[in-house]
């Protein structure tokens, strides 16, 4: 391995505290650090204000504090084509997309990685909470040490080739330690609020945002037995297991979204958090990335997550082909949602993941989930 001072590391800087500290730590380790801000979305409002500008100004402040060069790169077109189009298409199909997974796969660790490499970089670093460990010839992606912040769920599509070129300088730190480092060094972003929500929507109203791109088609809320319980504003505004915003009163337990019928534009609702309709015992996944490089050929047991920050649950995985697999849950799971990612783990090692396509119960697909 080259000496750090001869090793160029491009850091993807968002203007947030995590990537600021990632850059700082690399600089302290003596690397040739270059900060780059990615502009993926134009959210300029009618007053000419765009949050990208404010974030970029924070990047400038931090890079000046660290005395490293900084640049920006525009991936608006790629983001629109690869991430936003997918995002809308999934909603149109009645599924719940995961744009963060897609952004990591297509933009941050593809287009942006290529850009970094074209700048003579040896590595691309980001402020993600995850770790990379070299084990023989293989690169293993491990969960971030801060279990509450671990972001391997969103990084499940990273290949061996990508893992060989990335650094996650925050992987061994807790979020509070990251904040402490930033405060110790008086970084401009030390007390900046973490960004929330999907990056291109930000703090805005999700419904309002989506309605600008997809026509909302209001329809009926019904029980599976066909009893009309109210009106919905458009299927895309609801996710499986959701309780808020249904507006169904009456006696008994609260109401939850239990399914969608895209063809007839019906939102299925049922009573009770533990409504049986919300439970399934397996799934089928596609577009699986095996992060260790090789697709398994035989069934194996491991743990899985079906959504970010969920506790792992034991599963048995049966590969169908290199990118498809069946996943059986050892215990029934609530509100596993088509379009979201299923991510597999062997203890601390992330084995990769894929997109949830079908939900299975008693060996049958359940079609009412969308």
């Amino acid at each position, binding site marked *: 391995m080259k000496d750090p001072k001869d090793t160029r590391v491009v850091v993807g800087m968002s203007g947030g505290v995590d990537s600021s500290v990632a850059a700082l730590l690399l600089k302290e380790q003596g690397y040739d650090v*270059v900060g*780059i*801000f990615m*502009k993926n979305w134009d959210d300029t409002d009618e007053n000419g204000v*765009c949050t*990208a*500008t404010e*974030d*970029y100004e924070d*990047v*400038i402040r931090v890079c000046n504090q660290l005395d490293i*060069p*900084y*640049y*920006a*790169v*525009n991936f608006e077109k790629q983001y629109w084509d690869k991430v936003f189009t997918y995002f809308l298409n999934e909603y149109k199909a009645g599924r719940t997309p995961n744009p963060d997974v897609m952004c990591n796969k297509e933009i941050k660790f593809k287009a942006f990685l290529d*850009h970094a*490499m*074209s*700048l*003579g970089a040896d590595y691309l670093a980001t402020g993600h909470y995850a770790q990379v460990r070299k084990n023989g010839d293989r690169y293993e992606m491990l969960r971030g040490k801060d279990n509450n912040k671990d972001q391997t769920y969103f990084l499940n599509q990273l290949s061996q080739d990508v893992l060989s070129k990335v650094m996650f300088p925050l992987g061994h730190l807790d979020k509070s330690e990251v904040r402490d480092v930033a405060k110790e060094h008086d970084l401009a972003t030390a007390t900046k609020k973490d960004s929330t929500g999907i990056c291109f929507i930000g703090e805005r109203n999700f419904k309002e945002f989506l309605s600008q791109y997809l026509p909302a088609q209001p329809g009926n809320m019904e029980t599976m037995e066909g009893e009309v319980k109210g009106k919905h504003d458009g299927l895309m505004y609801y996710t499986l297991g959701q309780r808020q915003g249904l507006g169904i009163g009456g006696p008994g337990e609260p109401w939850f979204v239990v399914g969608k019928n895209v063809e007839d534009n019906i939102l299925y609702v049922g009573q009770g958090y533990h409504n049986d309709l919300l439970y399934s015992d397996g799934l089928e996944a596609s577009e699986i990335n095996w992060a260790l490089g090789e697709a398994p050929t035989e069934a194996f047991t491991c743990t899985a997550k079906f959504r970010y920050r969920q506790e792992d649950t034991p599963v048995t995985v049966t590969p169908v082909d290199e990118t498809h697999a069946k996943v059986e849950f050892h215990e029934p799971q609530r509100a596993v949602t088509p379009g979201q990612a299923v991510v597999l783990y062997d203890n601390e090692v992330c084995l990769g993941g894929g997109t949830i396509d079908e939900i299975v119960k008693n060996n049958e697909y359940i079609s009412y989930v969308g």
Partner: protein
Amino acid sequence: MNPIYFDHAATAPISNEVVEAMVPVMQDVYGNPSSVHSFGRKARKILDDARNVLATSIGAQEKDIIFTSGGTEADNLAVMGAAKGNQHLGKHIITTAIEHHAVLHPAEQLEVEGFEVTYLPVNEAGLISIDDLKAELREDTILVSVMYVNNETGSIQPIAEIGATLAEHQALFHTDAVQAYGALPLQVDALNVDLLTLSAHKINGPKGIGALYAKDGVSLHPQQHGGEQERKRRPGTENTAAAHGFAKAVELMKENQKERLQTHKRYKKLFLDTLKEEEIDFAINGGRINVPTIVNLHFPGLNVETLLTNFDLDGIAASSGSACTAGSVEPSHVLRAMFGEGDERITSSVRFSFGLANTEENVQEGARKVAKVIRRLTKTS
């Protein structure tokens, strides 16, 4: 590694002589030129001397020079001020698609306020046609604004010809001559212009000062309101030291104009010859009518952001179009006007501009570094 500066069209280094001339003014001449005491008179003299130097350099009268905070303010004053001052004669304005934003954005603002603006197209060489201008001229046209030298490509517009075309027309003629000053003959009578924009920092003067020439009798509405400085056309306490530095830069520019232009011509040739020698695939954007200080090159298949970042990391300062507030490079409106929407050249071209910070050695070294980057990128892409 000493970085090499090829971005003189963005801004140029200030001459040592200019700094030396300015320091004593900043230290000792602190009076307000409008004051009615000895301190004021001392400052007023320096200001008027500077005004005289500028006026003489373009064949104008001293009272026709309005000092501003720079080229942008002078352009705004010319376009907005002339439009507002002459709207009783009509509300039609003609400009070009390749103007600096300091003209384009005021023109867009005037459209919002009810004026009608025609943007003349340019050909692939970046030039407007006199026939187009004639075709667009109307009885109610009150202002024509065409830049002398384009800041991105260096192409030179036929200003004298436009001036002659407008001789019998009511329309005022404004030219943004910021990039032309020092590179081309600039006599307001010969060009038949009514308004002309100048800037100090492009000719190795200080930043923060420019000037507008406004021919005697031109009706010009001030764009700021305050004191009665600059014959009521530009309020605010005058920047005496900067005006003095501006004048010094003009004098230096006049002194060695011929040799300097020859030197810049040599730089440009050496730069391009070196790229050819290194067998780099490139094409020049723009035709043969251009200034020696600016060259805009298209590198087929390469992306402008990748190019500029690589150049900078290897110690080469160049540029392209304008940056957006979030740092990324905006597609150039000038190249878009020349080549049409979607043309590859818009996103794979870089401007190099030469000047005081260059020597034959660093021009050649810089060209070799550019070649090295291009080779590396074409190998990997």
